């Protein structure tokens, strides 16, 4: 992370220099006040009061300017640093493999890019500004105080440790409490979120009362922790005030004797009181700085984890060729999800020729989806290899590889822009005709035109305003507009009714004949016209052939077929 701050370090240092100026002037002020009191007011010298007074205002203005300038520098430094960090983080995440995204979880990646970066940025600003200020007040303030009268040193020596101990205790105790607080807050939020999103289920199972109890429990825990934090923090200021005021009394007491002994003047005594409060206040600031640092360091670690994760799928970078047909071959492929023992795919070997339609069918959890995710290298094989046009996918440039494959995911992901923009994700800058052609083939045009603003209708957050089948059809349009050679449909027609699905496949056959199509589906009707069908069972291919072949030879396929069609065909 140091490399990100380096660029802006100089301006940060300039900022701390300005800060030194501001503090010095702050410390000069009590002296000038003392001068006004002792030599002006006490001696009845009104012109001195005026001249010193005006000088003081001038000096303070200079100090204020220093303060503002220090703010300018520190802000430029910290915010640019934060901005670079945020961009680096986001860029890294965008290039993560699916596995890395899953490992971090989406929620945590969002927090890391947003609030964690802000915490680190605050830490930098606080360190430059607060740290310097605090140190200066302590060092310079103490020396000014001692230079007036060494006896005041005793007061400082007695009070400063008390404050330091207080800060230490509060910081130490609050750290774990803050962590706990965050967890409790997350818990409460998660209960609320689940209830808002799952209200139908709550109501359908008549669980309102038990949900309220569940919430009450989390709510009570949260409030309890919050209360503990507040109580802990409540000690801070009163103790600090009491100590400060006792010190003031002591200074007046000592100062009183010194004045009586003519060793000191009244104005100096007043200046001493001001110095004392400045020093102790500076120490108080330490508490805040500590807190920011604790949070900043924790956040920094979380950001570092993101930045340190090199993309798990590395760019092959060798082959950068565009269109070459689009054959896909799996050669003795095995796969295990990272961290699992269970082998999801076992020694799979299949070859799909250019322009062929290849279908995969099999039970829930048989590994269909995993198999196709190996083609665009969303995951890498553990054993064996996947070849496109005879070349290992790992040897292609990633971007080239993925530009050749149009992949429709199981769960349609829509962006909150217009329907048109959502389709254009497949091909930036595609023409109106191209867009409409793709939507028509995906059987999406009809419902799109029924939307209030047609293609330019905005999609609400995550596509909430659209039905599952409509979302799937937009996702398919997006894939069709892409100039790819291989189309993968990962169970992405599950929410379409039969007629629509049939029309979709008809359109695919007519307008997109050159595409190599790899289709995962549950319905026999969806796969039966494929050139080749693979039956997957527990990670192994148990059947491969055309519909007729499989029907005659393959037990599993026949079972699937029977479960879907037989009863009907008997009576028909």
């Amino acid at each position: 992370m140091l490399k990100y701050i380096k660029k802006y370090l100089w301006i940060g240092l300039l900022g701390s220099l300005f800060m030194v100026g501001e503090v010095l002037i702050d410390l000069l002020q009590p002296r000038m006040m003392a001068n006004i009191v002792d030599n002006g007011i006490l001696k009845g010298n009104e012109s001195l009061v005026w001249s010193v007074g005006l000088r003081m205002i001038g000096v303070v203005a200079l100090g204020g300017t220093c303060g503002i300038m220090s703010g300018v520098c520190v802000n430029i430094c910290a915010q640019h640093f934060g901005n670079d960090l945020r961009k680096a983080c986001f860029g890294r995440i965008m290039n993560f493999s699916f596995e890395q995204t899953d490992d971090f979880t989406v929620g945590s990646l969002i927090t890391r890019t947003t609030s964690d970066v802000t915490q680190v940025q605050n830490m930098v600003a606080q360190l430059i500004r607060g740290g310097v200020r605090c140190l200066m007040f302590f060092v310079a303030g103490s020396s000014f105080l001692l230079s007036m009268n060494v006896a005041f040193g005793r007061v400082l020596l007695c009070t400063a440790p008390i404050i330091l101990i207080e800060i230490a205790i509060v910081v130490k105790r609050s750290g774990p409490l803050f962590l706990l607080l965050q967890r409790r807050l997350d818990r409460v939020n998660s209960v609320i979120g689940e209830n808002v999103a799952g209200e139908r289920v709550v109501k359908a199972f008549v669980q309102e009362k038990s949900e309220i109890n569940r919430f009450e429990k989390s709510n009570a825990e949260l409030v309890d922790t919050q209360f503990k934090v507040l109580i802990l923090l409540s000690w801070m200021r009163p103790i600090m005030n009491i100590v400060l005021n006792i010190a003031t009394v002591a200074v007046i007491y000592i100062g009183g004797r010194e004045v009586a002994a003519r060793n000191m003047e009244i104005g100096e005594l007043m200046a001493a009181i001001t110095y004392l409060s400045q020093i102790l206040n500076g120490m108080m600031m330490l508490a805040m700085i500590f807190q920011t640092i604790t949070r900043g360091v924790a956040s920094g670690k979380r950001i570092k984890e993101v930045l340190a994760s090199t993309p798990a799928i590395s760019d092959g970078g060798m082959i950068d060729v565009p269109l070459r047909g689009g054959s896909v071959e799996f050669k003795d492929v095995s796969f295990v999800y990272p961290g699992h023992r269970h082998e999801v795919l076992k020694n799979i070997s299949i070859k799909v020729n250019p322009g062929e339609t290849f279908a995969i069918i099999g039970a829930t959890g048989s590994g269909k989806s995993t198999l196709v995710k190996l083609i665009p290298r969303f995951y890498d094989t553990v054993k064996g290899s996947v070849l496109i046009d005879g070349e290992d996918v790992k040897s292609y440039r990633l971007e080239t590889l993925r530009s050749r494959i149009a992949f429709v995911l199981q769960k349609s992901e829509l962006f909150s822009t217009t329907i048109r923009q959502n389709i254009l994700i497949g091909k930036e800058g595609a023409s109106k005709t191209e867009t409409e052609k793709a939507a028509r083939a995906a059987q999406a045009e009809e419902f799109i035109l029924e939307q209030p603003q047609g293609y330019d209708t905005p999609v609400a957050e995550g596509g909430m305003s659209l039905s599952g089948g409509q979302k799937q059809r937009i996702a398919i349009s997006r894939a069709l507009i892409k100039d790819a050679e291989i189309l993968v449909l990962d169970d992405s027609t599950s929410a379409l009714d039969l007629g629509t699905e049939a029309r979709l496949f008809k359109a695919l056959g007519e307008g997109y004949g050159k595409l190599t199509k790899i289709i995962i589906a549950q319905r026999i009707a969806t796969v039966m016209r494929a050139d080749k069908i693979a039956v997957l069972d527990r990670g192994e291919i148990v059947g491969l052939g055309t519909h007729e072949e499989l029907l005659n030879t393959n037990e599993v396929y026949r079972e699937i077929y029977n479960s879907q069609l037989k009863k009907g065909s008997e009576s028909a």
Partner: protein
Amino acid sequence: MSQSKYASSAQPSLERRGPIGNMGAPVQKAKDSKKTLRRLIAYFRREAKFVIILAATVVIGVLAGVLAPRFQADAINRIQKPELGSLTSVLIMMLVAYLIYGVSTLIQGFVSARLSQRVVRRLRGDLFAKIVNLPISYIDSHSHGDIMSRMTNDAENISNIVSSSLSSLFSGVLTLAGTIAMMLSYSPLLTLLSCSTVILTVVVTTFMTKYMRKYFVRRQTLLGRLNGTVEEMVTNTKTVTAYNRQQREVEGFSRTADELTKTGIIAEIIGGSMGPVMNMLSNVAFVVVAVFGARFALSGDISIGVISAFIIYAKQFSRPINEIAQLYGQIQTALAGGERIFDILDEKDEDKSGGEIVRPIKGVIEFKHVNFSYVPGKQIIRDFSLKISGGKKIALVGSTGSGKTTIINLLMRFYPIDSGEILLDGKSIYDISTDELRDAIGIVLQDTVLFTDTVKNNLCYASGDTAPEALQAAAVSSRCDDVIANLPNGYDTVLESGGASLSQGQRQLLTIGRAFLSEPSILILDEATSSVDTRTESDIQDAMAELMKKRTSLIIAHRLSTIQDADEIIVMDQGAIVESGSHEELLKKQGRYYKLYMTQFAGQAT
């Protein structure tokens, strides 16, 4: 769904009120602050004990705080003129005053912590109870993010204002009054002069705050946009990757991020200038006091001690003014949040009324000329009449948007019908309380909802404590026993973020298991097996046939194989029934069902 995005950062901080505090934060205004304030106060009324203690300690604290400088002034006078009396006795008085002040602030802290936590806990509890009891139509028609933010951010804002600001607002006003009184008692003329600089402070503060707010509002908007981008892109990262959009998305993000940084720097610089400017003004005040104090001291109107007291008072004077100015913005924001909370609290609860269900439940469901529309004018269900005899298996088929799910929404009383009648065992469902009605019906929904809890608790969601054998049996019937066996801790595995790590098909199996365990008299499956392969599905169907013997089941499915053996198949189109009968009867009719069936059978459109 990620929950963390709702995590509020509004946690108590060591920094109670910084020099510029929240002054620059965007202030939202409530439409009717007075009314909201009154309702908020009602929440405090029940905590009268704490409010009184708080008020009493604030009064004592302010008295001590205002008196202490007086003793200090005395002390300094006595140093200068020892004939005025013993220094030690004044110092003791001063010490006592400061101690009382310190202790009272400590107690204030404790009491307001207790008070705020009690109020917020109750507020949040009320709000949650409200949300759980709201009609489905409310949840369906409002953004979930918005409802979430009312429950979290708005409630948190009120909590913060109560815990950190209530006592300081109160003591601020009192200190102001007390200080002015003290200053007046010393020298009315010098008081007037001090006040003039205060007016200057107020003018400058108001001006700067106004200017600043513009940038803070802009920064807030940009931040919202940036966070929105991060959330959307990270959530949809699979599509971004599949379509090689990484570079483009990073560029878009960078543009917003750069703009945010630019605005942020300006906002912070203006905000940060506040401190030095205030410092400068307070020094001007000092010089004014010093110059005129000196003149009055020379003329013998006041003593040196009075000048020293004035210096302290002048400081004490500007502090509450600054604080109140800052609090004003915070209070406005909290009130706006309060108003949004009360908006929800004022929503009508779902109508749950009705009597008991007819027992034993036979499961005869009858729709009589039912009409319904979600939005007036866009009728979804038209003159729908259907009688389902008890113990039968009924299927609803039809294309998307034909109103199948709506029929379920009406039967569950999720939405009220516009006209007509729905009867269960001859009794209108509106004469049966929703608790009784829904208890009798087990439902598996299109959207699989699982809770962040153990698998076991998810399965036993409705049934409560269940014997392990029954649990196992339900898992076997719903075919989720395999899924569970592959989980690291079996039944005790905690499903993180609603089972995001499971496949859609696996989640569906778990929700079916959950419905089986609730032992319903009527079972509804709404596209419940769409992601389950057909063999597993037919196993489930066999188990269900056993389980639902003599009970009514209602099934919605796209796959006709799912419903072929239903006792009656209802074909719907545009909110009305177009055909009904058994699979064989409907095929013979060669009507719409036949066409649907043939597409499935043939696989391709003909």
